[in-house]
């Protein structure tokens, strides 16, 4: 038998918000081998395009996952709009940016909380989630849904935000910013967090590139890779530069996300001030025919929706390449040789989202 401890990690495990499974082979507490296995929440929803109207399918697309659901719907709609050559109204584009960035805020706060919890820092978890409720509140007030917004549709958005509301949202975010930066300070400066994150789960710039990492994982390893740089939607009008940190460890990835909170706040601010008046949607006639790769930046990195239609109301193919899928090879590399106690920290540091990875 040797001196090995073999334990199952997942699918049901308190630190795993979503089920995956790892066979962990440990020696003392050092992970010698981690063999992943997935499929616990595979639903097969891409296949549903064959049964659903492409316009209604947006509801399914946004239920690929409940955390960045809005961005999924944006990606999907963008794809259809590109195939059908629809230009959405500017106001709709700006509203999409606002909600996207709200999603990012709430997702990053959610992640920060879970990350803190994985390290056993319960108070910080509570703090992050307490602040997150502010974002959810705004989302619900503007779209009617806390986590599944359902406010994006092919050809624009489903509901408008009044200019008064926009102003009060902006004011609310400014008011909450000090608390956010205080929390950010804890993440970035606390000694004990440092002990758990610095030098843990290192992914070098080269391996990050070779293994095809995306999102904060890539940016934490020093690669400036952010789909928002492509300027989709209204992003081309906004002043944006990605947060890039070198280091490649859990601390760097955490730092990327912490700093992105403030980029998001900034982007929302910009979008609100630049918000044009006008319609929020254009009518959509006909059915899509053709194919398109739609790229957007989710909180976890770049997501690609591949859409192919043949002129009927049902699409031929819908395929999603999710950031988690792209980051898993990096994760496997990070896990080798780590401590058991760091497994949750490292796993969470890529912000795995099995929901969309398995669909």
């Amino acid at each position: 038998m040797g001196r090995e401890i073999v334990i199952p990690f997942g699918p049901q495990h308190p630190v795993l918000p979503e089920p995956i499974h790892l066979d962990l082979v440990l020696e003392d507490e050092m992970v010698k081998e981690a063999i992943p296995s997935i499929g616990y929440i595979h639903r097969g929803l891409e296949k549903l395009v064959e049964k659903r109207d492409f316009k209604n399918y947006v509801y399914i697309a946004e239920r690929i996952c409940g955390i960045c659901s809005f961005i999924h719907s944006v990606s999907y709609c963008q794809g259809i709009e590109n195939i059908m050559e629809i230009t959405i109204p500017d106001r709709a584009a700006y509203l999409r940016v606002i909600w996207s960035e709200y999603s990012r805020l709430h997702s990053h706060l959610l992640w920060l909380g879970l990350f803190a919890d994985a390290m056993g820092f319960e108070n910080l978890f509570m703090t992050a989630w307490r602040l997150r409720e502010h974002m959810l509140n705004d989302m619900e007030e503007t779209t009617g849904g806390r986590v599944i917004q359902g406010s994006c549709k092919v050809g624009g958005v489903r509901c408008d935000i009044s200019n008064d509301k926009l102003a009060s949202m902006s004011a609310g975010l400014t008011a909450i910013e000090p608390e956010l930066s205080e929390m950010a300070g804890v993440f970035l400066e606390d000694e004990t967090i440092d002990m758990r994150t610095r030098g843990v789960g290192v992914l070098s710039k080269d391996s990050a590139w070779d293994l095809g990492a995306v999102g904060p994982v890539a940016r934490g390893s020093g690669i400036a890779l952010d789909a928002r740089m492509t300027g989709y939607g209204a992003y081309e009008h906004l002043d944006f530069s990605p947060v890039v940190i070198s280091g490649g460890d859990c601390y760097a990835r955490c730092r990327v996300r912490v700093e992105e909170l403030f980029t998001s706040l900034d982007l929302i601010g910009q979008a609100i001030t630049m918000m044009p008046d006008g319609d929020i949607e254009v009518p959509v006639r006909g059915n899509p025919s053709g194919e398109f790769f739609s790229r957007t930046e989710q909180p976890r990195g770049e997501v690609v929706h591949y859409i192919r239609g043949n002129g009927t109301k049902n699409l031929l193919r819908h395929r999603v390449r999710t950031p988690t899928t792209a980051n898993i090879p990096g994760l496997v590399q990070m896990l080798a040789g780590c401590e058991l106690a760091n497994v949750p920290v490292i796993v969470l540091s890529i912000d795995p989202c099995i929901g969309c990875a398995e669909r």
Partner: protein
Amino acid sequence: MSYLKKSPWILHYDASSCNGCDIEVLACLTPLYDVERFGIINTGNPKHADIFVITGGINEQSSVVVKNIYDQIPSPKVVVAVGICAATGGVFRECYNIKGGVNTTIPVDVYVPGCAARPESIIDGIVAALSILEEKRKAMKKGETPL
């Protein structure tokens, strides 16, 4: 005197949800909703749990897991299916990999509708589960086979 109603510990498992209901279940534990007011603790261990909260529909792989976890929860226990996915499979009902709601695998006591279910709704669901839990305890005491 029953303490069960005052100290229900929950175990949450994501059978194949989209995360929407998941994060709402988690949100219940956080300051704004704080279910610990009712003595509810989210325990990660089926052997310590009283209430099994499931989100998402059942797929081929998760059904085994759900069954396994359910068996390891000591009686009396109740199952709360959160979200319509957990009830019937929801929008994914017709996906090839979805068997349907949780009731296809284990008996469900409370359904919390919604997509995603709101935290308040989830709290209501758990409160509803408490009285069922109490009934089951009485039944168990009488020597009936616990479910």
